[in-house]
């Protein structure tokens, strides 16, 4: 579904992502793991068209390298960015509706889709008139995911959805990810929390200093020694 | 050959006339006041060209060297240094407003270079020594004339003054209040404004409330036109009397019908039948294809005064300065010019009235 070939990202003199190759098949959850600064967010940002890069990115066989972020969203690749980035001065409802910005659908359909989101996150329905900025961290994360889902993505990319969240909220979020997968979405998940990530993923890539070091089925990686040592604390 | 040289102006006369008499000119060629500067320079240039066409001064060619002061004292100071020291001019003409003129004045006094101030009215400009004299009457003289006209000739009693917040404006306002009350008139309200203002409604509302017989507009034409228009639009019916700052075709253009009936004092009028004026008006129109104003006449006369002084003395700077100070009954476009012991000009003040979109001559008188 999504094929990434020889992706390179530079920030001035820093070579953040080096010849990264990655493959995403329809309906699976793939996780991209790696320590801080390994280049995970940079890779996602490149796919979203937010930063400059070299290499080729194919979506359903079409090159999308040259597209701008909004065009990529229109293609159906949507990202939940690191740090959530909800619109603080818009209401929860307005935030969600912005998720559907690119889609020309009637208000009826939108209302129905909103219902689905609210089913997934009942908390959002309770707070739909509240300003996004006043929600707690966990609620904001739910809002960010809900907002992305309003774009009816074919591929959903999540950048560290559990960062800085209370354990109880992290559990909620992972429950949701599993539910979404059940609906047939393809998911690219970036996580520091390797145990959590591997518990939901089908396959995993491990990235180090901008390069893919390992790539395997999730359950296999969980058992590997090197991985244990580097990412699972022993 | 002489003729074509004259027409080319100063652009390449520099190369041709190594021993030409150089006259320096400074004034604003950029910035918000650059129109006045440009007109002043044009007129001075015209005077020089005409002098050259008629054989120069004592056979020597004359050349104008100009510098832009951007309306800033600092630039005028530098510019005048350039004129005095690089270009070695025999005399300087200020085509500038008061600030730059003052900055230049102290420098020419120090260096001993004669300077004629063509239209700036700051009272201090001529006071620092014997090298600076002025072509335009001072605000005090003008105020005396205006008060005399309003109170004695027109028998008006109550007045309002709207004046610009620069030295000329304040000087005029203070002098007007004094002269009017000495003649038994009464100034009910005075409001100041800043150069560049466009909205005068608040000040005019205050004026309207007092219903004065006449409103003195102490302004240049841009703001003056706005003041008069807005006053009329809001229904103020008082007579309008203005200073020479209004004496510009732009005033008529900008104020349009609202200008009707405005009386101004000035030092020059285009319809003057004297030959020198008619020649000047015609030549200016031909050469620059724009209307001329009092500024032009002042700057033209400044050159004439320098020429007259050189003819009566030499090209030595000190001699020229002395000769300028003893100018007597020189015929200029603004009348018969005499320089008094305070380096100030004595010449008639002209009154004009706007009728059918044009300035019409009323009378003139020397104060």
């Amino acid at each position, binding site marked *: 579904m999504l094929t990434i070939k020889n992706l390179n990202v530079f920030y001035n*003199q820093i070579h953040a992502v080096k010849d990264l190759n990655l493959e995403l098949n329809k309906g699976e959850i793939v996780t991209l793991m790696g320590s801080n600064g390994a280049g995970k967010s940079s890779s996602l940002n490149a796919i979203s068209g937010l930063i400059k890069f070299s290499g080729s990115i194919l979506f359903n066989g079409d090159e999308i390298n040259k597209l701008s972020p909004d065009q990529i969203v229109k293609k159906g690749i949507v990202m939940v960015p690191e740090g959530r980035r909800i619109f603080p001065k818009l209401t929860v409802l307005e935030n969600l509706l912005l998720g559907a910005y690119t889609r020309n659908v009637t208000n009826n359909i939108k209302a129905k889709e909103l219902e689905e989101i609210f089913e997934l996150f009942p908390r959002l329905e309770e707070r739909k008139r509240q300003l996004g900025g006043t929600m707690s961290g966990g609620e904001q994360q739910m809002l960010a995911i809900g907002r992305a889902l309003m774009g009816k993505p074919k591929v959903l990319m999540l950048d560290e959805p559990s960062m800085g969240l209370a354990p109880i909220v992290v559990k909620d979020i992972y429950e949701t990810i599993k539910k979404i997968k059940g609906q047939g979405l393809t998911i690219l998940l970036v996580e520091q929390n390797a145990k959590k990530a591997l518990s939901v993923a089908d396959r995993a890539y491990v990235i180090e200093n901008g390069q893919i070091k390992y790539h395997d089925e999730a359950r296999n990686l969980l058992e590997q020694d090197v991985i244990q040592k580097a990412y699972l604390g022993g | 050959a002489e003729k074509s040289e004259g027409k080319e102006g100063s652009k390449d006369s*520099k190369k041709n006339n190594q021993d030409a008499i150089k006259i320096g000119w400074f004034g604003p*060629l950029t910035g918000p006041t650059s129109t006045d500067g440009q007109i002043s320079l044009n007129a001075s240039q015209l005077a020089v060209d005409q002098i050259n066409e008629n054989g120069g001064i004592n056979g020597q060619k004359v050349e104008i060297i100009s510098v832009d002061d951007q*309306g800033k004292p*600092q630039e005028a*100071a530098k510019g005048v*240094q350039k004129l005095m*020291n690089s270009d070695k001019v025999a005399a300087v003409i200020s085509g500038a407003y008061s600030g730059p003129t003052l900055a230049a004045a102290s420098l020419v006094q120090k260096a001993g270079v004669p300077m004629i101030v063509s239209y700036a009215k700051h009272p201090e400009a001529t006071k620092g020594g014997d090298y600076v004299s002025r072509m335009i009457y001072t605000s005090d003289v003008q105020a005396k004339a205006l008060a005399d006209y309003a109170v004695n000739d027109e028998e008006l009693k109550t007045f309002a003054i709207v004046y610009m917040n620069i030295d000329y404006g304040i000087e005029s306002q203070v002098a007007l209040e004094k002269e009017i009350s000495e003649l038994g008139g009464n100034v009910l309200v005075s409001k100041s404004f800043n150069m560049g203002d466009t909205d005068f409604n608040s000040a005019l509302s205050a004026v309207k409330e007092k219903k004065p017989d006449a409103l003195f507009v102490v302004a240049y034409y841009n703001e003056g036109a706005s003041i008069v228009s807005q006053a009329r639009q809001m229904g103020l019916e008082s007579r309008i009397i203005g200073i020479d700052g209004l004496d510009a075709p732009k005033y008529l253009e900008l104020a349009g019908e609202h200008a009707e009936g405005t009386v101004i004092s000035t030092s020059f009028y285009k319809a003057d039948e004297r030959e020198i004026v008619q020649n000047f008006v015609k030549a200016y129109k031909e050469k620059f294809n724009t209307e001329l104003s009092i500024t032009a006449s002042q700057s033209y006369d400044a050159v004439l005064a320098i020429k007259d002084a050189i003819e009566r003395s030499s090209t030595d700077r000190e001699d020229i300065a002395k000769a300028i100070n003893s100018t007597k009954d020189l015929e200029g476009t603004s009348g018969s010019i005499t320089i008094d012991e305070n380096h100030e000009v004595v010449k008639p003040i002209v009154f004009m009235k706007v009728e059918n979109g044009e300035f019409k001559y009323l009378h003139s008188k020397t104060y």
Partner: protein
Amino acid sequence: MSLLDFINPYYIDILIFLVINILLGLGLNLTTGFAGQVSLGHAAFYGIGAYTSAILSANYGVNVWISMLIAVVVTFLLGALLGLPSLRLRDDFLAITTLGLGLVAHSFFNNSQLTGGAYGINSIPAPLFFGIEVENVGYLLFVVLALIAAIYIMRKITRSRIGRAWVTIREDETVAQSMGINTMYYKVLAFAIGAAFAGVAGALFAHKIYFVNADSFTFTTSATILSMIVIGGLGSIRGTLLGVTLLYTIPELFHIFDVGNLLNLNYLDNYKMILYGLLMVLVMRYSPKGLIDIKNIKTKKINPAVKSGDQNVGS
């Protein structure tokens, strides 16, 4: 041009005003470049310095050297006072507030009795050195000495612990506070020192030109100086020297070589300003950190440690 032309008072004047502008720029760079307190009203301090020395010497007969010293002290104190808003305001709010203070100061110069209102202050005396008026080359020597002293002082301060406090405040005020930096004190200090530099410049200006009025201390003056130091490079002394010299000299060259007459341009000075505006846009576009950074456009410094990719201790 002969050598004699170069000791022509005109060229001397150009140099004197150049140095005065550099002093102004240095002060603003200290406040804005080093301490991060954007000021769009620097001309106010320039004016305060000029008027203080002018009023004291011309109206009260104070010895010029002493009046200049007093001017510096006064601008330092008023700089501290007018720097007070920076304690409550940040970034753009501060920028516009200082712009406002600049306009208010200009308005005060132009209206107050103290400053001679629209008449300005006239007949300002030149300083005397053993009874001789310091003018031309002498004055140039004097302003250059002042400049050298200013550069020396600025280098020392910005490289000291105070400079470190300023940089921290500039980058992150909360961090600065949390590290024990009394941000109030250092911000006010930055304004005060920056103002004092402008005060020196102002006093030197007044006794050079012998006449001051409000025209010399407008928003345009502030904006021009700011442009000069930003184009040179914020936070760099060399940048200020470069930026001010360049932007000051270009228009001057137009006059020296009489370009208007050579090219037969009626609106020469407008073209000059257009060039100036264009230069500002282009420098900001191609070297946003100023001309001092221009070498970095082509040859980016390559950092070996980073290039080898050895940057993650964790893995």
